């Protein structure tokens, strides 16, 4: 495997929580890998399965979705939809032959900057192990 492989991650981040946490992590100068391309959404529930597969097709090695904890959603139950959807998107990807570990859903509240940095770092390591997304070449 290529030692210099730097996975590219597309991250859909809820405006009210994860996006703030990511910002905080930056302000606090916590070590964050530079692999992330952040996309702010108003709620993680706005993330359609089509965004996930499009990102994977367009060159992302991993897709990250960050939402509020269950019970804390700014729109009451948007994140319930996120969870239910990902529970189906993951097996669908597996059935097609795409490793579902390339899609990661996390609940990260606005104050959890440290958790954000940790989670992304873990995700990058995992993706390094998985290698480049084979869908890219197709």
């Amino acid at each position, binding site marked *: 495997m290529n030692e210099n492989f730097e996975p590219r991650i597309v991250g859909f981040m809820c405006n009210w929580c994860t996006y703030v946490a990511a910002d905080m992590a930056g302000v606090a100068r916590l070590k964050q890998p530079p692999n992330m391309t952040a996309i702010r959404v108003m709620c993680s529930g706005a993330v359609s*399965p089509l965004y996930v597969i499009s990102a994977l097709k367009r060159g992302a090695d991993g897709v990250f979705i960050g939402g509020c904890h269950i019970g804390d959603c700014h729109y009451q139950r948007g994140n319930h939809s996120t969870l239910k959807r990902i*529970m189906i998107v993951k097996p*669908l990807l597996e*059935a097609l*032959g*795409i490793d579902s570990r390339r899609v990661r859903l996390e609940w990260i509240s606005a104050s959890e900057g440290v958790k954000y940095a940790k989670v992304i770092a873990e995700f990058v390591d995992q993706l390094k192990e998985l290698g480049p997304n*084979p869908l890219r070449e*197709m």
Partner: protein
Amino acid sequence: MKEQVRLRCKELLSAKRVAAVWGLREKDGCAVPFLFQNPEEIDALTLSPKAPLSFTCRPSNETMLSVLQKKMPGKRIGVVARGCDERALIELAKGERIDLDLIEVIGFSCDQAQAEECVCSRPFPQNPVAGDKVKGIPEEKAFQGLLAMELKDRLKYWEAQLNKCIKCYGCRNACPMCYCKDCRMEQSVFTKIGWLPPEFPLFQFVRFYHMSDHCIECGECEKACPMDIPLRKITKYLRSRMEDLFDYHPGLDAKRKSPILTTVDEDPVKDLPDELR
């Protein structure tokens, strides 16, 4: 079995309990859907588990029964239904396309051979008028081979299969559950259009995803595909996931909404990792 169904249809029509019956008719050697409006016409009614009841009509994407109900407001329509047809009716009612209260189901069961051909887990409607309820076939049979493959082989397999696609939209046209006026498969936002093959795997992806909580196991998608793409390997696998995660089966309970649309309290995800609770 045909005679029992015909008898029931004639009874319903004669007693004016239904204004019409939607079922299959023998014509020119084909079994095709027909609206029987008189008891005499029922003599031509036939049962053909292999032939679809044809719910949809293009390009309006309206369900046939929805069209009929609009044309006959307030009247009851009898529908001669296999197990899958009845499940389709229940899902259509949930999707508010038809009024189930105005539908009288005249159900009949499929035989063992047909169940095996369709790999159907429930080859009978709830209260069949004719036919014995045979044992369903475990759905794993349809996708066992797929899961046995290694991930990278699976990807190559689907690339070869899905790249045969000629964008006829047959899978969508034939599916009783594809009734959206704004069909996602038609939208160019996510995938280049006007080109063959349609972008892998985006074109079929959204339909697979929607089928997870809508697929009623009729098999029409595969029968409509001119390139013999084994679509049911994926749809049946997703159905099994819905069963494992939520104990949910599309088309069985008219009162139960899809778990994807409900909260985690109403339909919790089984075996959810702690971090996501």
